[in-house]
């Protein structure tokens, strides 16, 4: 059996979606800026896609949707673009401690450019505290970026309350959220969240890699980070990746169609999985929150006395593919910052395993995973010099 439980990193492209992409690669392959009819058809499809995505997040118009190569680019355009364009208003930026790596790198780049960055901590379940945010706001604050759902520990951030706090300020503070783990999994409403910018990545919901979008609320002052031919959109030069965009649209339609039932099914499955692991394996710690505050797409456990890369590799040999927060699995050899951010120690980070589902994950797969997990954990514990109580 092959079970892919690393869906937070990427998902498979659904056949229905691949079909759409294939069609736009080989049949409707024209560029939307051509003068001829086939190009015009593509232009119309692209415009409809823009409107579809706008509607799917309750934005006002398709013009607020900027297609990108994915969430990393979206995050770059949003944060660097807003920071540079609003520098005359202030040089202070606030991010959370659980941001995606790209946001972290962007923040340190901006520091080099003379911006000040406040990283607000998270509590031991992975939530930011609103009073920390309020305290961090200064007159020079121009942008707040908070991830919608923590991608390691699954905490759903209080976007609505953050938006509320920011809108109460006497000066304009732009609000960006990286919604890579939220879009097409939860209902998303940019008006309810009061966000100005939102990053989305296609390959997290069964669309191809290399495509995503950025919601940019009308009136947002933003500078491009790349320059080139004026295409659809001045904010992002270069021809649109139409096949991938159309594939992303199909993927989003399919996901959103069943969004509520997917959520409730996964919620049950998640509880079942957590219960089973906690009752059948000793010395496990659930990283991140329990219940409603956690995305049902994510479970993250630390297994004490053993190391995560060894666990994930052993599981992979049994056909179960997961991610680990162990330093040994990272190119930089650093333990997972999210586990450290929620107060975990290095051992907990090294021993952490992230299981992330998609809406097709089944109970049989969970049962199989738990069985294999039990044997892998007990085998690795047998060979470990560290034992419980030592």
């Amino acid at each position, binding site marked *: 059996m092959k079970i892919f439980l690393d869906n937070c990193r990427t998902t498979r492209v659904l056949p229905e979606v691949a079909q759409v992409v294939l069609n736009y690669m080989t049949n409707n392959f024209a560029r939307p800026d051509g*003068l001829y*009819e086939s190009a*015009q*058809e593509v232009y*119309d499809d692209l415009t409809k896609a823009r409107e579809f995505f706008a509607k799917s997040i309750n934005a006002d118009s398709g013009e607020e949707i900027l297609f990108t190569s994915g969430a990393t680019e979206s995050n770059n355009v949003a944060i660097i673009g807003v920071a540079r364009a609003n520098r005359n208003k202030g040089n202070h930026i606030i991010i959370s401690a659980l941001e995606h790596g790209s946001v972290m790198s962007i923040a340190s780049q901006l520091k080099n450019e003379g911006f000040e960055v406040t990283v607000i901590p998270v509590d031991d379940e992975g939530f930011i505290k609103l009073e920390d945010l309020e305290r961090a706001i200064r007159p020079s604050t121009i942008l707040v970026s908070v991830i919608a759902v923590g991608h390691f520990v699954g905490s759903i951030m209080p976007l609505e309350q953050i938006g509320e706090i920011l809108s109460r300020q006497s000066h304009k503070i732009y609000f960006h959220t990286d919604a890579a783990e939220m879009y097409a999994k939860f209902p998303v409403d940019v008006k309810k969240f009061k966000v100005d910018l939102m990053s989305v990545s296609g390959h997290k919901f069964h669309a191809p890699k290399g495509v995503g979008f950025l919601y940019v609320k009308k009136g947002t002052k933003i500078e491009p980070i790349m320059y080139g031919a004026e295409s659809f959109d001045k904010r992002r030069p270069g021809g649109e990746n139409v096949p991938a965009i159309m594939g992303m649209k199909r993927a989003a339609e399919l996901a959103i169609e069943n969004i509520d039932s997917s959520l409730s099914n996964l919620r049950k499955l998640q509880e079942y999985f957590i219960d089973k692991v906690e009752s059948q394996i000793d010395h496990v710690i659930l990283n991140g929150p329990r219940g409603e505050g956690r995305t049902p797409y994510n479970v993250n456990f630390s297994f004490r006395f053993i190391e995560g890369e060894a666990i994930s590799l052993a599981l992979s040999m049994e056909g179960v593919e997961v991610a680990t927060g162990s330093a040994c699995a990272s190119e930089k050899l650093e333990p997972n910052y999210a586990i450290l951010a929620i107060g975990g120690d290095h051992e907990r980070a090294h021993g952490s395993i992230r299981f992330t589902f998609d809406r097709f994950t089944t109970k049989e797969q969970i049962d199989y995973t738990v069985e294999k997990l039990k044997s892998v954990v007990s085998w690795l514990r047998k060979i470990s010099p560290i034992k419980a109580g030592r």
Partner: protein
Amino acid sequence: MAYSERFKDLFLNPRYAQDIGYTHTAEVVYPEHGDRVRIFVKIENYLIRDIAFKASGCPRVIAASEAVCRLANGRHIDFIKTLNEEHIRQEMEFFDKGFECIRAPLEALKKAISKIES
């Protein structure tokens, strides 16, 4: 730009791009667009007995010229004075915003008949 069947017909099969014996003519040029339209009319008793055009320019100018001719042929010059851009757009089935170049042929026609007192 998606063109309607009507537009395609006007552009591909213009019946009035011809040479006629005319009584009045006028030309309008939009230099910034590179568009040039000349309208020829044969007028008898305030009626347009024959009409023709020559145009060089974008497809919209050519289609609009043909549309103007089709609308105007056989009509009284008072009717011509009531024509506006909207009528031409209807005739062309072309509603994309902007493209002021499509006004050129109607302007030329009105200029051609402007000296006639009714």
